[in-house]
Every structure is written in C-alpha cells, then in structure tokens.
C-alpha cells in the first residue's frame, strides 16, 4: 500500500493506493511548517480507509517547497563556487545573468580553477590539487556552508568533480558539496546555475527531509520515503536531501501522471482546472511531453527536464465581468483564487465567478444556487460558449496530431468543462480527479537520466548506447530503484551540427521500481 502526498501552495492532498485502487483521499490546508499539513492529511486517509500505519509500504511526496523558497528567496545558503574549467568561461563568471537580489542572497565567492575536459574526453587543463585545496581553505575561512563544483564536460567524465569534492571535504568537512555532474545535462552555465541553486537549498533540503521522516515516524509509518522529481519519476528522500533542485517542477507532472493512471490512458491531453488557471499538457506514453525551452526558476536559466505546460487564465474562481446591459464583457483574467469559498455568489459572496455560472447552468451542484443573481436570458449560455472556446483553443494548441484525442480532466475546477469538446475524441473525468497530483506521486517509479557527447569514430555506437544505459541505471539504483527492474524508456540521439565525423549528443532515461530497502 502506498501513500501519495502533494504539498501545494494552498492544499496538501493525500491518497492511499493499493495496487491500482485508490482507497481514500483527503485535502487539507498546507501549513507553514509543511509537516503538520502532511500529518493531518495522512491521518485523514488512514482513518477513512481504516488502515494501520504499519501497512504503508512506501510514501511518495511531491512538494513545491523548494521552488517557493527560491522564488521568495527564503532560507537560502551563501554558496562558494569552484569552477574547473581552465580559462574557459572566464568571460562569463558564475551567476552571470542572475537577478541582482538573488545574487546578493546566494553569491559568495567563486574560483576559476584549472581542469575540465574537451568534448572528446581529453583534459582541457590538468587538475590542480593545490589550487582546489587553497580555494576550499578560503571558503572555510569565509564561513561558507555550501559549495557548488562545476567542471567543463563533467557529464562525460565526473572524475575531476569527484576529486575536487573529496578535497573540499578533507579541508572543510562541514561544508556541503554539490557537483554538477549529478544534475545532468550538457550546457555549462545552465548546469552550473542548477548546481549553485542546489547548493543554496542544501541545508533546507536536509531539514525538510528530516522533518518529513520524523513526522511519518511519529505516526508509526516507517516505510521508505520518496520525493517526486520534475519528470514524474521518484528519488529517495535521502537523494532528494542532496539534490533538491531535481524536485522543483514536480507539481504539473504529478497531476498528469495521475491522470494517466486514473484513466488508464497513455496518450491524451490533460487539463488541470484550478482556481485561477487551467494547466494543459500532453501525455505521451504516460509521461508529460517535455518543454524544449530553457526553464527560468526564480529568474535563473536552467536546463531541467520540465513538462511542456500551457497555462490559460480560466479556472473556477475566474471573475466574469458583465457590461451595463448585463451582457458578458470579459472572462477574467482576474480571479478570486483561493478566496472562492468567501467571495463567490454561490457561497454568499458578491462576485460573479466561473463557478457561479457552472452551478447556475446545472453543470455542478454545490454552494447555494439561490444566492446567484439572475442573469438576462441567454447570458449563461453565452458565457458557457466562451468557456468552451477557450478550452477548445487550449486543446488545439497542445495537440500533437490533427486527429481527435482523449482529454482527461483533473483538478477542482473541471466542472467548467463541457462533456464534449471539439478536438476531443472523448472527455474523461476520472474518480479522484481532484487529487490526481497526489495519485501521480504515489504511483511513480524511480527514474534517472544521463546526457553525454560521444564520437562514434572513437566509440562503437552499440557500445556507447550500452555505456550510457548502464550509467543511467547506476544512477537510478543510487536514487532508490530496484536493480532488477530498471529499464530504458527513452534514448535521444542528436548529431552535432557544424562538426565533421559522427559525433552525437546521447541522452538516455531509465525507470525502475522502488527498492524496498532504500530509504
């Protein structure tokens, strides 16, 4: 039995899943300390399903905690940066292009040190142990608690970063270290940015993971704890405590994965209708289609794997504006958001919202329809027609083929969506749609990705593919996967342009089932 939890900005959702059955679900307000909201939601599902804490075999948490910390600049550590790059990149020192306030908040000291590789694996400049030691000493003297280590082409060879990490630990045993090769992709500045962000979150990540573990342990839940990462796969809490940046974009991914699970549909458009916006994404083989655009987090450019999401300004709390004659003049874009239960007419408030219209039209029954003022004949229909065209346009923008596709609705605001839509072969609203994100967390597997550059002139293609798959598998096992279940789910092979010979960028993604022993 698995416990899935999604900690959002407003609500903390919990679901209890056994096999493919959702036994219970609950929604509770998110609390400032995060843990008490989790405890309250967890107690609610255990009570509802009459399940003992000891029966839980795994706990999976999706959280926006770290991304909020970055956006709000809260609880971040100052970071020292060791860049192993020889002279490469001297034109663009660490944190180039960062917002000034974040730079002030995190920016410690940085060192450009000998080291780095070329694309073909040769050394750019030799590693210099003394230089790394001296830099580490200075970081210790400055009292920095966290260090980010980046090395040119470390995705193809991690050893310089690992040697540097080892030396830092010798010189300054209390400093926490993040190496860029653990975070992935080719593209130096973006990877270094992610490494620095991770280092700045390291203390918070340890505390948050420890508080999660303590909270579950108090409830008698001693099952291994996992955290959702951006692509919808899991990492162990221990791994997340080291690499919190891997979890920054898990929210939309989890709700899409949950939608796939709840419906059994692997290829579909998923619409998550919330209070303020509707997030539309495309499921391909059960996973969200990834965005190809560099992702900005808190104003910093990164190259994380993030789902391609279209956010449109229509949700349950969207305000409906009428002109003086009582005809609809605008749908939003403003929204009463989480104040819906106070401000909407149907809850006794005095704002006309999208939910009021849906209830008035009989699409849903909640609140008190009597409180909704009467509208001119035809106005409700006109507004519903506008909702329809907004949703249909969104679907069309995210569809990948000309034919009709299934559309899966999740989220609390899905009452706004008509049962038939242009472009949709069918519109499916599964049970437990309101907690699809927690479901997505609960059902996930452990995943890992490796990205590197390979010259087929030097290494045989089959051998290269085996190599990269093996390395991705090792990573997945380190992140908590059961070795016997790890399988390759995706390989991307892109030939490098403007370079003679057969040099490619290879990227492999693997997933595996949870190893029960991992914690």
């Amino acid at each position, binding site marked *: 039995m698995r416990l899935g939890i999604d900690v959002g900005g407003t609500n903390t959702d919990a679901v209890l899943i056994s096999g493919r059955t959702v036994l219970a679900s609950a929604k509770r307000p998110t609390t400032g300390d995060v843990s008490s909201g989790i405890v309250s939601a967890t107690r609610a599902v255990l009570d509802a399903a009459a399940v003992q804490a000891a029966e839980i075999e795994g706990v999976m948490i999706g959280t926006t905690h770290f991304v909020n910390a970055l956006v709000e600049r809260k609880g971040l550590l100052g970071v020292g940066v060791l860049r192993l790059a020889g002279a490469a990149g001297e034109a663009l020192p660490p944190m180039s292009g960062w917002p000034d306030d974040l730079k002030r908040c995190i920016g410690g000291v940085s060192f450009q040190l000998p080291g780095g590789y070329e694309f073909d694996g040769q050394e750019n400049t030799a590693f210099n142990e003394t230089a790394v030691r001296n830099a580490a000493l200075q970081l210790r003297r400055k009292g920095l608690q966290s260090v980010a280590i980046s090395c040119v082409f470390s995705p193809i060879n991690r050893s310089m970063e690992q040697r540097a990490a080892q030396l830092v630990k010798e010189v300054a045993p209390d400093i926490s270290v993040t190496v860029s090769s653990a975070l992935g992709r080719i593209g130096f500045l973006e990877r270094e940015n992610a490494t620095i962000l991770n280092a700045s979150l390291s203390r918070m990540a340890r505390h948050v993971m420890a508080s999660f573990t303590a909270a579950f342990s108090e409830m008698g839940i001693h099952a291994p704890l996992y955290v959702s990462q951006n692509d919808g796969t899991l990492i162990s809490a221990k791994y997340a405590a080291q690499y919190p940046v891997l979890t920054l974009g898990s929210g939309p991914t989890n709700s899409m994965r949950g939608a796939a699970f709840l419906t059994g549909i692997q290829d579909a458009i998923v619409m998550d209708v919330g209070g303020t916006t509707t997030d539309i994404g495309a499921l391909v083989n059960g996973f969200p289609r990834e965005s190809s655009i560099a992702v900005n987090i808190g104003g910093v450019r990164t190259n994380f794997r993030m789902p391609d999401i279209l956010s449109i300004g229509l949700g349950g709390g969207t305000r409906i504006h009428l002109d003086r004659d009582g005809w609809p003049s605008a749908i939003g874009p403003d929204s009463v958001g989480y104040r819906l239960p106070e401000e909407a007419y149907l809850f006794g408030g005095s704002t006309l919202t999208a939910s009021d219209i849906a209830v008035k039209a009989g699409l849903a029954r909640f609140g008190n329809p009597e409180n909704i003022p009467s509208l001119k004949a035809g106005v409700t229909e006109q507004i519903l027609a506008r909702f329809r065209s907004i949703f249909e346009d969104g679907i069309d923008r995210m569809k990948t083929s000309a034919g009709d596709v299934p559309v899966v609705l999740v989220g609390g605001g899905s009452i706004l969506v008509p049962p038939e839509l242009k472009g949709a072969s069918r519109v499916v609203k599964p049970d437990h749609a309101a907690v699809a994100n927690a479901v997505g967390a609960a059902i996930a597997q452990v995943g890992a990705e490796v990205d590197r550059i390979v010259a087929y002139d030097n290494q045989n293609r089959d051998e290269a593919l085996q190599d990269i798959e093996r390395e991705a598998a090792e990573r997945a096992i380190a992140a908590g996967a059961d070795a016997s279940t790890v399988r390759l789910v995706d390989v991307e092979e892109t030939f490098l342009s403007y*370079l003679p010979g057969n040099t490619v960028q290879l990227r492999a993604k693997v997933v595996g089932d949870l190893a029960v022993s991992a914690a």
Partner: protein
Amino acid sequence: MSASPKLQGRTLSLDDVADLARGCAFLGSGGGGDPHTAFMEIEAALADGNVIELIDVTSLPDDAFLAPCGWIGAPTISAEKLPSGREALQGLRRLESISGRRVDAVLPVEVGGSNGLAALVLALRAGVPVVDCDGMGRAFPESQMVIFNIRGQKACPAILTDDKGNCVVLETVDNVSEERLARSVAVTLGGSCHLIEYSAFARDMKANALRGTISDALAIGRSIRIAREGGRDPFEALFDALKTSRQFDKAGVLFDGKIVDLKRETRNGFSVGRAVIDAFGGGQRLEVEFKNENLIARLNGEVRALVPDIISILDRETAETIVTECLKYGQRVKVVGASAPQALRSPQALAVLGPDAFGLPGPYRSIAELNGW
C-alpha cells in the same frame, strides 16, 4: 595605415543587441547556434561602460583594414565550453602583427545565428566599430560559402584561437583548403574556435560585402518585439521589416502547421534531418530537410524553397525562430521563407552555395518564383 577615420555610426544599446540576436536567429535559416552566450558577454561589456558603434562601410576610407570574424565548430560544444573572452582579441592582434597594420573595424563573416553577435564581442574588446555588412547574409555550414570567396578574396591568413590561448595561423593554396584545415584544427582544439578570415581593405569590402545586413537583422528583431509588446501580429511586422530590408525583400509564409514527425538519418556520412509539418485542418503537408540549416522545403512534394534562400521555422505565437536542434514533435510553427541577397543568387555564387553544393536536386529556382511572390 589609414588616418583614424571620423566615424559617423550609430551606437547600439543592449535592447538593440537583443533585437539583433532575434533577427540573426531568423536569418540563420535554422542554423548558426544560440546567441545567448555572446549576448551575455556583450551585456557585461556594455554594463562596464563600453560602446558598440555600427558604421556603414561607405563611411570608411578605402584603405581601412577590416577583419571579418566568427566562431567555427559545434554550437552544442560552445554551450558547454564557454569562451575565455580573450580568443577574439588574441586572433585580432595576431592578424595585426602578420599584416603589420592595425585593424580599423570588424564585421561578422556570417550574420546568421550566434556569429551575428560575435563581431560585436570582438568590437567591444578591441575598441573598434562594427561594419554594417557580412559575407553570408544568413548562416552556412562551410567557410568558403561566403561572398568574399565567390568574389575572389583570399581567406588567408586565417587565424584560429581557443580558450587555452592556442593560436593557429593558416596559409593555404585556396579557400576550400582553408575551410578543411580550419575545421580540422577546430576539432583538434576542442570543437569550437574563434576564426578571423578574409581580412581585407574597405575598398574590397565596399565592392564585395553584403551591405546593411546587420541593420536588416536588427530591424527584423525589433519589429517582432514591438509587435508583440503592442499585442499585434508579430508575423505581419516581420514581413513589413523584410519587405523594406536591403537584402531580403521577398518574403512570406510558406506554411502554417504542427510538426508531426522529425526524422534524423545518416546519408553519405552526414546527418540529415527532416521535419514533417501538417496543416491544422489536415490535407496539406510541408517537409523541411535540414543539415545544420534548413535547406529545402517541399509542399505536398513540390519544392517551394531552396538554399540559399532563407527557410526559418518560427513559433507561430511568438515568431521566435526555432533552430534545427530544438525542433520537437508537436511544435506549432509557421515556416517563413525569404529571398537570399541577390549577390548569392548569381551562377558563380550558386555553384559554391546553391543546391548542388549540398547534393540537392537543382537547378536553383528563386523563392519568389516558386511561390509567385
């Protein structure tokens, strides 16, 4: 030596540089790499109080000495191995010591893609102006595919420099040999190098260079931004800018649709890609074949655009150019075509950079003729 000329140029702001980057990406015809790194270098230099001056080649005395420059190698590599920031100036100083005279101004070898901004970086480091012209009017994969070669200028001495401070000077028997040697040197030095080549006097550049291409790129980028900021159609603005441009006046939408397939295959030892784009209503299909850049577009099997004319795939909402490496299944795009500069469409030029040079079925027919523009 020329007396230091009184330069009547315009100064480029950081906003101008951002607009230029957007315009250069469009002219890259799907290639040329990401200008992000170069943009950040320029941003830092402008913040330090340095100034970029853009001048017309006609404002220079005939004996002014000019250095075309750019980077050679794989954009994927230059996104990982960033510049030291000294490569360009080291190359320039070497050229000056070989030629025994100061360089008066620089220009991009190719305006398309990230190389459109590379000359600005060198201009800032050397404290010289940028000349409003280039040698390709777009992006091309090989360095002899340049108007300077077609009009008989010499590529050499060509100077390659890298992040570590290596400097290689090429003296070759012809310009095709220069390309071959330069590329293999670039690979040996780590897959991405700064290159100065086809240095010449303003007299030759006035006769040979594709003039006004930087202003054109700037106007393209600016028109898209201003339209977007004002909530207007960025494509209309783009076509207004192209129609009034100096070099790219015939332009239009070749297709509007969604990428439904991306194939990458190896042909004759080269990686060749194909983007298949279907119209939203179904029925119509455009196929774009690319190798580094987009080379040929076929509508329902019929050729609608051919290299050297520009074929760029743009996000259909923002009108931002999507380079070939970033094409993804499902993207909603408009494919835009624009005529290459007239000078690139002569029989002599087409022999070097037309369909034949890419192993495509010829003969070349202009985009205006193929589409009745």
